[in-house]
């Protein structure tokens, strides 16, 4: 790889690099001020919370890359949580089958979104707004009141550590990156997603599978939200059809995607940035906790940090000389 190539790569992943640096600084600050310091339980607790949002944010990244937005990821997350709380228990075979069904349900929800967007030619934001209501309704049907159960040994394993050192949830996240995200990004449909997001007309004229890329992005998004829903079941040992949980995760996932350096206009960024965006958002909450900020001030502080973080991109505006570039 030549020096020019390296420079280009660095410039392209500027958002990701900033997100990683900010996260490392914040997490160091958190650990330094935590009364217990860097111990396995502290890291595992932090990881379990962060991985949930990280998975949902990865799910959000794919539609955003194609230039859309998925307002139903939080509801797919809640729906698969409710489904897992009814299916993932009993004998090992039943558990395995339950997990497969939960993941398929997530993927199916994403596929429906994609099919309506591609074949129905509706805007993603309004499509997922409506399907989100449907998925929430299904979640309520599955679990009218919070409850349910999940195979306890598996849940304990997934929310604890491997060899008492590495949190299992982080390994799950790594596996998802290595087995799902990276192969997808390097495939034809994966590259098609980037192309569709940056210039749909040009992608079509170049013979790229425009429709198939979009459909794949939404389906994979549903699958990732399904993995997150399964993980939530392991963390809480139950299912709950909660509209606030779904709404909060959807909104935080958009913020995480932006903080992770993915453009909301599509075509640039990636799921790894979103993971660090999610980690940053979660660490902010943890920092508020260790610094003993009065609880009344916490929501305002979180809001201001969120607003500040998303406004950072505005630096671009003041560097632009030709004002017409603003409208691109």
């Amino acid at each position, binding site marked *: 790889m030549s020096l020019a190539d390296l420079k280009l790569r660095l410039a392209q992943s500027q958002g990701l690099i900033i997100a990683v640096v900010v996260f490392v600084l914040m997490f160091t600050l958190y650990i330094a001020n935590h009364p217990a310091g860097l111990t396995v339980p502290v890291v595992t607790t932090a990881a379990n919370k962060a991985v949930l949002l990280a998975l949902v944010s990865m799910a959000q990244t794919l539609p955003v890359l194609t230039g859309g937005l998925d307002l139903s990821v939080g509801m797919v997350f809640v729906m698969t949580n409710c489904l897992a709380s009814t299916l993932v228990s009993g004998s090992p075979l039943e558990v395995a089958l339950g997990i497969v069904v939960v993941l398929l349900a997530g993927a199916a929800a994403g596929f429906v979104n994609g099919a309506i967007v591609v074949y129905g*030619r*509706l805007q993603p934001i309004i499509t997922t*707004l*409506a399907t989100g209501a449907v998925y929430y*309704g299904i979640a309520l049907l599955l679990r009218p009141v919070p409850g349910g159960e999940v195979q306890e040994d598996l849940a304990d394993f997934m929310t604890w550590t491997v060899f008492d050192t590495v949190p299992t949830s982080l390994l799950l996240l790594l596996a998802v990156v290595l087995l799902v995200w990276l192969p997808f990004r390097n495939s034809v449909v994966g590259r098609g997603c980037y192309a569709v997001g940056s210039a749909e007309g*040009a992608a079509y004229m170049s013979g790229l599978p425009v429709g198939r890329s979009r459909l794949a992005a939404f389906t994979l998004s549903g699958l990732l939200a399904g993995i997150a829903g399964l993980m939530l079941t392991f963390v809480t040992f139950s299912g709950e059809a909660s509209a606030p949980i779904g709404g909060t995760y959807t*909104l935080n996932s958009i913020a995480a995607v932006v903080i992770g350096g993915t453009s909301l206009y599509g075509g640039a960024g990636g799921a790894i940035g979103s993971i660090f965006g999610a980690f940053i958002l979660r660490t902010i909450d943890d920092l508020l906790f260790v610094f003993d900020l009065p609880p009344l001030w916490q929501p305002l502080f979180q809001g201001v940090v969120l607003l500040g973080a*998303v406004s950072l991109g505005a630096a671009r505006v003041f560097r632009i000389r030709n004002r017409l570039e603003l409208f691109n």
Partner: protein
Amino acid sequence: MAALVKHIDRPVAIAFGFIVLLLLAGSLYSSSFLSANYLLQQLQVAAFLGLIASGVMLVILLGHIDLSIPWLVTVGGMMSTAAAGWWGPEWAIPFGVFCGLVFGIVNGLGVAILRVPSMIFTLGINAVAQGIMVLHTGGFAPQDHATDLMHWLAVERVILGIPNAVFIWAALGIAIVVMLKRTPLGRYIYAIGNQEGATCLSGVNTKLVIISCFAISGMCSALAGVLLAGYSSKGYQAMGDPYLLPAIAAVVLGGTHILGGRGSYLGTIAGVILISLLASILSVMQMPEAGRQIIYGCVIIGMLLVYGRGQKVLG
């Protein structure tokens, strides 16, 4: 007559047709659906959503979106009751709407000057507004019950048994229609929704137009919050949460294009009534929440598949 028909475009006609269909289907279930009292009650509830949707529509016409609705509604409701406690009841409504205006202007500044995508900037403002309201409630223990005037505006029916809230919605609606059809600002809004760059090159102060629309949207949400506080006789946290999605859905069902540049206020009225009526009929039928959500989502998708489809990509 022919001229009138020409002015009503397809989405609006279908939306109104669906409203009639809903009423007929409802009347098969119970004849009270066609009674004047029931219909007026629906209009009263729809008026709150209508106020919010009016502001949201302007922002959507620009090609932007306002996700700060939930907490700006709450700001309107809570700050108006608090102002009544601090300085006397006559300050309640002006101060509530003023707070919405301030947040709306900040939204506009972020979108127009900083050029942060509206989706994410208004989301941030929503979080900040929530933070301020939490601090405000916990730190100052403000008055939370509505003034007599707020209650009167939201609940009473003075003229011909028509709720006062409907008159407020009508007044705001007429003002917005006149603004959209008869003033330069209205034409600039459509122009920006179609081609912002071209509009700016034509010498229009696009930044000012964008800031104005977000400011109006903030005021509309806060005004709805003031009336909602009057309706339930107090302002409380998260009172605006159920209004974001219905407001956007109402605007889009009324034929306004979600990417901006196209849409009419008549459509928004149809969308608001449609959404309110659907919710009401399902709740009268004692449909459980789960079924209500599923039907709600399917109706939106179904109606948009009939008339809201985009162009095929052809290079």
